[in-house]
């Protein structure tokens, strides 16, 4: 019974973090078929943002979260203007943007490493925005308050994003663009503005996801890589561009990872996810929640 609770608790936590990262990726893919390979470095930047905010400037910690979201958003917008903006007309944009943002992400990462070597001495830092190991018991399993916060923040952010998409004019413009870019443009939607906002929103979510990730493991320069790939696995499992699907898939993948971690060993988690995805895709090529046939090249 105990290990069952353990799996649920840690699966929900993983799921919440992957959901924040994956919903953003799905949103951007839905809007303009872009996969941002610099998503991982934005998570890392989010985690370091808090560190710089608190340790270097000594600003109050509780404001750090929203500002990390904002900072992530700004980085996302910058990424749009130095990469995607110039490539929208290329004939295989989907492929070239992956390579371009991969290069950009690696450059940012190397730049960050260089900068950090001058700012901080040792690489791993504890995330200041963390409640530490204080916990309460469910059955015999300790559940830290940190997890509660992560769940609350993740649910709140996803509800906010859902409200933004369904209740505001901009949200409607985003959904219209995702459904049919040309029709949206004909109806007067400024699609390029939609692209910037969507990428900024996704990057803001990634920044917050980065803080959450680093509150369990320390803040290190390469921390964003593996979670980004897991988020990719999530959106492949869900079917690219499917946001609600991404939410469920994130929880599923989180549970799989937690189950493998609890029952076998941590290091097989990634392999287990991969196997799940491959089987799921062979069964349903357009993803678990995909309605259409395979996306055309």
């Amino acid at each position, binding site marked *: 019974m105990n290990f069952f609770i353990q799996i649920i608790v840690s699966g929900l936590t993983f799921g919440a973090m992957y959901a924040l990262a994956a919903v953003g990726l799905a949103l951007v893919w839905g809007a303009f078929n872009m996969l941002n390979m610099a998503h991982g470095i934005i998570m890392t930047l989010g985690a370091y943002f808090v560190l710089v905010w608190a340790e270097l400037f000594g600003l109050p910690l509780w404001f750090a979260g929203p500002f990390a979201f904002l900072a992530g958003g700004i980085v996302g917008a910058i990424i749009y203007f130095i990469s995607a903006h110039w490539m929208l007309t290329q004939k295989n944009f989907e492929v070239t943007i992956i390579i371009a943002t991969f290069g950009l992400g690696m450059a940012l990462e190397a730049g960050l490493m260089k900068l950090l070597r001058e700012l901080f001495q040792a690489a791993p830092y504890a995330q200041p925005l963390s409640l530490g190991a204080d916990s309460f018991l469910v059955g015999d399993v300790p559940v830290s308050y940190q997890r509660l916060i992560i769940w609350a923040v993740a649910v709140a952010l996803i509800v906010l994003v859902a409200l933004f998409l369904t209740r505001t004019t901009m949200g409607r413009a985003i959904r219209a663009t995702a459904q049919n870019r040309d029709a949206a443009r004909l109806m007067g939607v400024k699609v390029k503005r939609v692209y910037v906002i969507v990428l900024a929103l996704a990057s803001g979510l990634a920044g917050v996801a980065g803080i959450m990730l680093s509150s369990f493991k320390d803040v290190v320069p390469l921390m964003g890589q593996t979670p980004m790939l897991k988020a990719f*696995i999530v959106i492949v499992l869900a079917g690219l561009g499917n946001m609600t699907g991404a939410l469920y898939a994130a929880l599923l993948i989180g549970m799989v990872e937690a189950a493998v971690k609890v029952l076998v060993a941590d290091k097989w988690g990634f392999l287990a996810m991969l196997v799940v995805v491959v089987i799921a895709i062979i069964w349903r090529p357009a993803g678990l929640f995909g309605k259409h046939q395979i996306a055309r090249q």
Partner: protein
Amino acid sequence: MKTRDYILFAILLAVAAAFPFMGVPRYIIASALLLFCYATVVSQWNLVFGVAGIFSLAQLAIFAFGAYTSALMGRYLDWSLWPTFPVAGAAGVVFSIFIGLACLRMRGIYVALLTLAISQTMFVLIQTDSDCSALNKVINPATCVSFTGGAQGLGDFGTFGWREVLGGRNWMMGDYYTMLGLLIVALVFTAAMTQSRIGLAFKALRDNEELATSRGVSVFKYQLIVFAASAFLTSMAGAFYAAHFGSVGSNLVGFALLLFLISMLVVGGIGRLWGPLLGAGLLMVADEFFKEFSDLRNIGLGVVVLLFMIFLPEGVAGAIESVCKRLQRIPLVQRIEQQLAERLRRRSAAPD
């Protein structure tokens, strides 16, 4: 392929063969042979990505798979490395066919994401492999390492063995010509493959899958063929890499090397005949020049990849091609070309 491609190939071959005797320092020879190794991998990758149009990022995983196969056999079975090379190649083919099967029903971006995840899985499994392996206890009980060597990497499995044959001063020459041989095989193989009926099928599937399948070209068959065909030499290159350095590590599947190879592919020109060689050459030369700024290396590479994707997605080879085409539109150049062709025809028509 035209006559000028054959001539260019012959010239390059002569230069590469004579290169070690031109009095260049040893470290240049060492980077040249590394260039050959990477160019081999990139040329095979170009076959998958450029010619067949499958955006696979698993090429490095196959490369590392070959390197580790060779290294593990050398270490635990006590084989000399030479007989492990074909085994490594074959193992790479099997591995690659599995990858091909896993992404058989996927298209485009899905393949990229899945193959990237496969590489990362390999990276994670090697990195986290830290339990002392029973096999290593036999070899060296004092410093027991894990089966794959884990994050520290694995050594002590032998080399090409040129040191014993050629002596301590000239062994690098042996490695150099071995690697050059591999590259020549790879270039001839890719060129022949691209020209063949199979290559035509790859291109047909890349350019218009619906039409190609309706004409009887099987996706299943050709996707597996391209994954298998490109894997053998990639995996061999990995094994050669291991044999040259005498050590392997998880960095073989790391993002940094992926970035380096992707920039070779992008700078050279994806899908172009001369792309891989051109890209590998340019990048290695640039790397040599900017050695002092090695901490800025990844920043530079990343920015180069970004700029090429924005402004020159066809790569240098593509740019040269379009410049040539534009030149051919100039009347004077056209006239000279016609006269040359005329003269050639007359000479070949004339009786001996």
